[in-house]
């Protein structure tokens, strides 16, 4: 029943495309967090009544701002911290109090955590030596793991002689060499520069595909989470605001927080007129205009205050008969691949719109020009 609670949106209200983008929907359950709470100061919950199902073989990102509880969740999963309430189940067995060294998980930290008194090969061999793997097999598996992390020839180096990216590859090889059930990563690329980070993201994704083990990835970088993950759990104030495939999160955010945290969203306040069948009608405070748009939140009723959410790239200049708002261009910014307009509505609400310079089909609006912006009902959302 908890699995049902977790579903952010009722299936009926979701678009077909969101189901297609979730190929792991039927993968067996590996780990389940049940009503897990954690506090450090006895006053506020860092993790607040968390429900989370982790599926076998998925790449799941825990995304959220700092202090949202994502790292604490990972630490409890790794066994470095214990929940104050609730249970963590793995294969149906309670592992809440199981010590970290009996959990069979690989962990990669942002700070690499390589043993400075061991060479690269010794670092990678460490978990195998603990398991008393014979020397010949150890050598072979260390070689394989270093090859997987593309670190051939670095065996005898000391960690201190390596760059940040290389150190993180060693940490990755070390965490994978003993074939753990899951690989947990805590902002593993956070200390690397942008180009290297993007490169490592692709490699991580390839390694996940090759090995097929479950990856749990903590990050505050939404692009990273979107690039890598099968599913993303968006954390806010110790709870999961929404968990879904990246496309679903982006196209069908369940809350304003998710809409704003993943990419940019224009939010216009208003009042619900009606809500039925996955669509709702909202009257904007700004200009009293009526907007018909998707609404997955069945608890919203007539009279409730809500917001019309529309991504900058989904606003359209000029309109046929679709709902529209009037605004004045404040600024026009050229970004290369796209252009951005900053607009003000009469009541002061700010809007942002991006468009492809080549496909506008009319001269670009100039600052000061009054325009009508179409808000397509299929692309706009009504959020509590």
């Amino acid at each position, binding site marked *: 029943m908890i699995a049902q609670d977790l579903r952010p949106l009722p299936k009926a209200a979701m678009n077909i495309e969101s189901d297609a983008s979730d190929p792991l929907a039927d993968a067996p359950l590996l780990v389940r967090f049940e009503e897990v709470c954690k506090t450090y100061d006895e006053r506020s919950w860092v993790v607040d009544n968390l429900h989370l199902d982790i599926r076998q073989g998925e790449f799941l990102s825990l995304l959220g701002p700092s202090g949202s509880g994502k790292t604490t969740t990972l630490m409890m999963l790794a066994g470095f911290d214990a929940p104050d309430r609730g249970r963590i189940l793995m294969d149906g067995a309670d592992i809440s109090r199981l*010590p970290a*060294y009996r959990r069979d998980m*690989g962990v990669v930290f942002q*700070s690499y*955590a390589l*043993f400075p008194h061991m060479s690269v090969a010794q670092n990678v061999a460490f*978990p195998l030596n*603990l398991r008393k793997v014979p020397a010949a097999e150890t050598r072979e598996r260390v070689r394989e793991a270093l090859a997987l992390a593309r670190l051939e020839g670095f065996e005898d180096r000391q960690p201190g002689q390596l760059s940040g990216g290389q150190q993180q590859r060693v940490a990755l090889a070390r965490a994978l060499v*003993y074939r753990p059930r899951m690989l947990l990563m805590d902002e593993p690329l956070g200390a690397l520069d942008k180009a290297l980070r993007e490169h490592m993201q692709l490699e991580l994704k390839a390694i996940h595909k090759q090995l097929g083990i479950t990856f749990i990835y903590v990050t505050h970088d939404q692009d990273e989470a979107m690039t890598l993950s099968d599913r993303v759990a968006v954390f806010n104030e110790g709870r999961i605001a929404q968990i879904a495939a990246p496309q679903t999160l982006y196209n069908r955010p369940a809350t304003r927080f998710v809409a704003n945290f993943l990419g940019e969203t224009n939010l216009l306040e208003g009042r619900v007129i009606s809500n039925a069948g996955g669509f709702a009608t909202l009257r904007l405070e700004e200009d009293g205009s009526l907007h018909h748009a998707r609404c997955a939140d069945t608890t919203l009723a007539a009279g409730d205050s809500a917001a019309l959410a529309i991504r900058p790239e989904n606003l359209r200049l000029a309109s046929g008969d679709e709902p529209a708002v009037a605004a004045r261009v404040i600024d026009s910014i050229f970004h290369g691949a796209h252009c951005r307009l900053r607009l003000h509505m009469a009541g002061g609400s700010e809007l942002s719109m991006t468009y492809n310079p080549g496909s506008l089909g009319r001269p670009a609006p100039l600052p000061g020009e009054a325009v009508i912006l179409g808000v397509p009902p299929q692309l706009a959302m009504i959020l509590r």
Partner: protein
Amino acid sequence: MIRNPNRGRLAWFGNLGLSLSGWLVLAFLLLPILVVLPLSFSDSRYMSLPLGNFTLHWYEEFFGSAQWLGALFNSFAIAVASTVLAVVLGGLAALGLRHPAMPGKRLIEVLLIAPMIVPAVIVGVGMYFVFANAGLTRSYLGLILAHTTLAVPFVIVNVGSALGGLNQRLLWAAASMGATPWMTLRKVTLPLVSPGLISGGLFAFATSLDEVVVTLFLAGPDQRTLPREMFTTAREALSPVLLSAATIMVLFATLLLLVSRSLSKR
């Protein structure tokens, strides 16, 4: 070396004053030690300047005397035993003080480090009464325990700072790979804090080697240590053998210092 960024006559005087006062402090610290060295090779019957003729007589007397050699041996035996004890106990204490679930850490740490701060005379008097009741005065065991008490703070401080520089995530990483706490201690913690253990041990050794105050309170006629023998000689006989004994101790101290320097560099 402090470099003066200023130029000109006044700066020149400033530099002069700086180097003069620097050398003065250095001389004040080192001269009392250095003056012993030439005097120990002088054939004058009295420990006085000017230097007499070169002789090895006082060294011959030192190494020919069963009493001096016995004292040297005792000092080393006691120092080795109390160092081993202090490293084991102090190392364990430092580990315990770093454990997250340890209650009253601050208080315990202050109490453990107290022997380093409390004047030795007070420690000596206190130990005399306690050890007398326990039948530990006039025994080697009593001296070893006393020196261990004095040496433990050095181990705790050194190992504690080494542990402080140890990233918790290294221990977590080891645990995630399947290392039990005992394996983590052996394979990760101990190798990484070994510089702290070694320098703490050297401090402990040096503390025991030159400890005289508590020894005077606790030792019986059999427990002659080198510093105690030197103290007695200085009071009663005032023989220049004292100077050869002092030179030998300075040599040992210098050796310890060099060893600890080279170890800490690695």
